[in-house]
């Protein structure tokens, strides 16, 4: 009976022998004690013969495999590469947006800026963007250019008087008025555009 006990505790006996062994064990104290020793031995061995720190070492193995078959185990997998490109685009977008927010004024800042310019400007100066306003820089520029071209007399010989003549003379004032009338009538509309 003792010879079959190792197989009995492992469950490797056939059914008939197993039943016979169980019948014997029911009435034999010494065999039961030996059977229990086998059970304890098996249980202790199952616990002790396990790796104490079964860590995954896939990263090391993969690096070795990459040296042999780099096409199967590439450094950057396709999905990881796509994720990296997407992350780079997202980071670039965030940087551009942050730069835009830092440089561009806030929506309500333009009005506050013009208000502050008015308060800081000297008396008599009105900051305005209306081209039809008499003090508009567009209108002033148009008047100056119109006067300049009208005053040019390419056929006339240059004289000291024409060279020293200031636009503040009465004739020049007429020309300025004429140019103002042209601007008001819209014939120099391209300056207002």
């Amino acid at each position, binding site marked *: 009976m003792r010879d079959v006990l*190792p*197989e009995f*505790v*492992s469950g*490797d006996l056939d059914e008939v022998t197993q039943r016979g062994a169980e019948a014997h064990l029911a009435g034999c104290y010494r065999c039961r*004690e*030996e059977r*229990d*020793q*086998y059970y*304890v*031995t*098996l249980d*202790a*061995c*199952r616990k*002790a*013969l*396990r*790796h*104490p*720190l*079964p*860590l*995954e*070492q*896939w990263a*090391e*193995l*993969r690096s*070795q*495999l990459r040296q*042999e*078959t780099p096409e*199967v*185990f590439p450094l950057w997998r396709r*999905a990881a590469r796509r994720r990296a490109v997407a992350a780079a685009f997202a980071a670039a977008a965030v940087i551009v947006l942050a730069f835009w927010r830092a440089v561009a004024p806030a929506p309500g800042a333009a009005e506050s800026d013009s208000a502050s310019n008015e308060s800081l400007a000297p008396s008599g100066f009105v900051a305005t963007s209306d081209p039809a306003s008499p003090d508009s820089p567009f209108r002033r520029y148009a008047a100056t250019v119109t006067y300049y071209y009208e005053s040019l007399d390419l056929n006339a010989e240059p004289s000291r008087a024409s060279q020293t003549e200031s636009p503040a003379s009465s004739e020049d004032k007429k020309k300025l008025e004429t140019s103002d009338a042209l601007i008001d009538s819209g014939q120099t509309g391209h300056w207002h555009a």
Partner: protein
Amino acid sequence: MGTKRQLKSEIPDTALMVRVSRGDGDAFAVIYHRHHKRLLDFYYAMSGSASVSDELCQECFLRVWRLRDRYSPSGSVVSYLFTVARYVWYEQRPTVYRNQRFRSFSEAPDTVCDVQDPRPLPDALVARLEVEDAILSAVAGLTEEQRMAFVLRTVQGLPLSEIARIMGCPVNTVRSRRISALKRLREILHKILVV
């Protein structure tokens, strides 16, 4: 991504190994994650050293990858892995024995007790470590064939027919080796193991 992994976890081992034989690295990764712990336990029981078992487990999977063309789905993947593991063990055994003697009571174990801590260990832990050392020493005292048959049956729980296929011997030979191993271990260990 998670769905992909989940699908791969549901694929049977044989189908995965067929993919591995065609050069599928992802299938090989799944095979590794499923079975590396079994091979670690096998090598730990055979060598008694955690570091040696780590190295041999890596070598075994490297060998599986290198020999992927030769795989034929005739038996279970587990028995195929253990066949390669046995081959690697016999190949690396001289190096293992030359570089590191089998762990014994007098040598400092390389896994748990090599941390120098001045505080006394609890009695229960000391007792457990002593029992583990005694078991490892007793297993080291078996012949290699007995040890392998015992480990594959008792620790890994493989059926005798698969063990016979792995070890390349008849089933009765495996049975007799295992019985001899178990008897020997009981004779040595029953004095220190409390029933």
